[in-house]
């Protein structure tokens, strides 16, 4: 086959070049926040790996962790997310226990959902569970007033199986186009109550996270649900997983989340003696100032969380050229943009001094995260 023929065939079948998989980090490789287990929290979505959230409206029903259980991933993969049920919880009608990823509108606008030209997509993934039976999830729009519950069957316990679901694009409803909002929300159900469960295989104007009758992972104490290789692509056939190089996956993830000095990820040294240092000047006001340019422009102006000694909200030390120091638990970053921010080291007012903070996870060292998740 010549390149010309290959390209012509790909064009005629709608096979794209370079961004086949609309899911980011579908191989579960990037985990900037933590590689430890996170337990579902009713007040917030949590991220066991980048871009993939867990949420449960009742606290502490399941954990999620990159490579939990240390099983061998499917051939071709090195990572997965492992979800483990913490109890035998009987879900109530309005309970939702979910795992998934919201996809940005810029990355789904070409699907033309909400129009007569809506394109068909195929969702594929590898899954392994200690349970068998019918499982499911849903695709939803930003306003969550359009949803498509889907189902799939796990036939053998504790065995990796590849699943695919083909979904005719929605020709109705309002779908976010080429913006930084939510284009499509992909959700896998882990135990969803009847209020949020609907008929599989059909678009609905109701809010459904799962198909009616799907197996509840949180319903069995110790049950496991492992997943990787998640891919959403144009067309009616699941093709091979689009495995990206690590650097490109990291850059894609950094559009939504970045960290500085919250883990051993910057110049630090084996004994903490060579950390990255940021310096600040006092311009005569009450706060020494410095700036930080993000390595990747973010989806939106991010929220910034400060860390001291590797702990969120922990203390760090600001030093000055007068041989003084002050302990702080937060810097004031009141000027935040989507490409960079200004860092104000509060409470240090001597304009004759120079100021610096060491960054890292050591005692007195500063770190921070920037989140612009969907």
């Amino acid at each position, binding site marked *: 086959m010549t390149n010309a023929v290959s390209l012509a065939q790909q064009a005629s079948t709608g096979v794209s070049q370079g961004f086949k998989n609309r899911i980011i980090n579908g191989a579960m490789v990037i985990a900037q926040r933590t590689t430890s287990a996170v337990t579902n929290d009713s*007040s917030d979505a949590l991220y066991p790996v980048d871009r993939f959230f867990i949420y449960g409206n009742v606290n502490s029903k399941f954990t999620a962790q990159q490579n939990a259980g240390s099983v061998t991933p499917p051939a071709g993969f090195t990572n997965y997310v492992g979800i483990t049920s913490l109890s035998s919880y009987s879900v109530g009608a309005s309970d939702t226990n979910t795992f998934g990823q919201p996809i940005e509108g810029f990355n789904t606008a070409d699907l033309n959902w909400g129009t007569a030209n809506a394109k068909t997509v195929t969702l594929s993934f590898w899954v392994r569970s200690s349970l068998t039976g019918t499982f499911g999830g849903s695709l939803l729009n930003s306003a969550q007033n359009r949803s498509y519950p889907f189902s799939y069957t796990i036939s053998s316990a504790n065995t990796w199986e590849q699943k695919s679901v083909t979904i005719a694009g929605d020709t109705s409803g309002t779908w976010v186009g080429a913006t*930084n*909002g939510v284009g499509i929300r992909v959700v896998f159900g882990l135990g969803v109550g009847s209020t949020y469960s609907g008929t599989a295989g059909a678009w609905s104007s109701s809010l459904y996270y799962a198909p009616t009758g799907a197996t509840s992972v949180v319903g069995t104490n110790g049950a496991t649900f492992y997943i990787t290789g998640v891919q959403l692509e144009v067309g009616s056939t699941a093709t091979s997983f689009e495995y990206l190089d690590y650097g490109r996956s990291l850059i894609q993830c950094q559009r939504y989340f970045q960290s500085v000095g919250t883990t051993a990820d910057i110049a630090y040294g084996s004994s903490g003696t060579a950390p990255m240092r940021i310096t600040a000047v006092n*311009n*005569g*006001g*009450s*706060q020494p100032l410095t700036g930080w340019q993000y390595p990747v422009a973010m*989806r*939106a*102006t*991010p*929220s*910034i*969380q*400060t860390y001291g000694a590797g702990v*969120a*909200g922990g203390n760090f030390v600001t030093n000055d050229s007068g041989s003084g120091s002050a302990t702080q*638990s*937060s810097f*004031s*970053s*009141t*000027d*935040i943009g989507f490409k960079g921010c200004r860092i104000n080291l509060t409470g240090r007012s001597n304009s004759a001094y120079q100021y610096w903070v060491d960054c890292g996870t050591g005692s007195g060292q500063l770190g921070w995260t920037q*989140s*612009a*998740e*969907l």
Partner: protein
Amino acid sequence: MKKYKLINHVDYWMDNTKQPNTVMLVEKSLHIPFDPDNTDYQQFKAQVLAGAELQDADGNVMTQEQADDFIKELP
């Protein structure tokens, strides 16, 4: 219920006027910009309207009516 505190922006280059342009989720030291595209900001507005505590930049707790009025003026 979560607690939020307004953080003032100080205009050093003009006249040192102070105006809040971020809010901090206190228990997480999370600075949230006033950006309608930021999901923490969306959650902040919803939570305050639902009764979450909002402090001004000096740490004074706003009444629910004051907080509601402040939220309604935001982008």
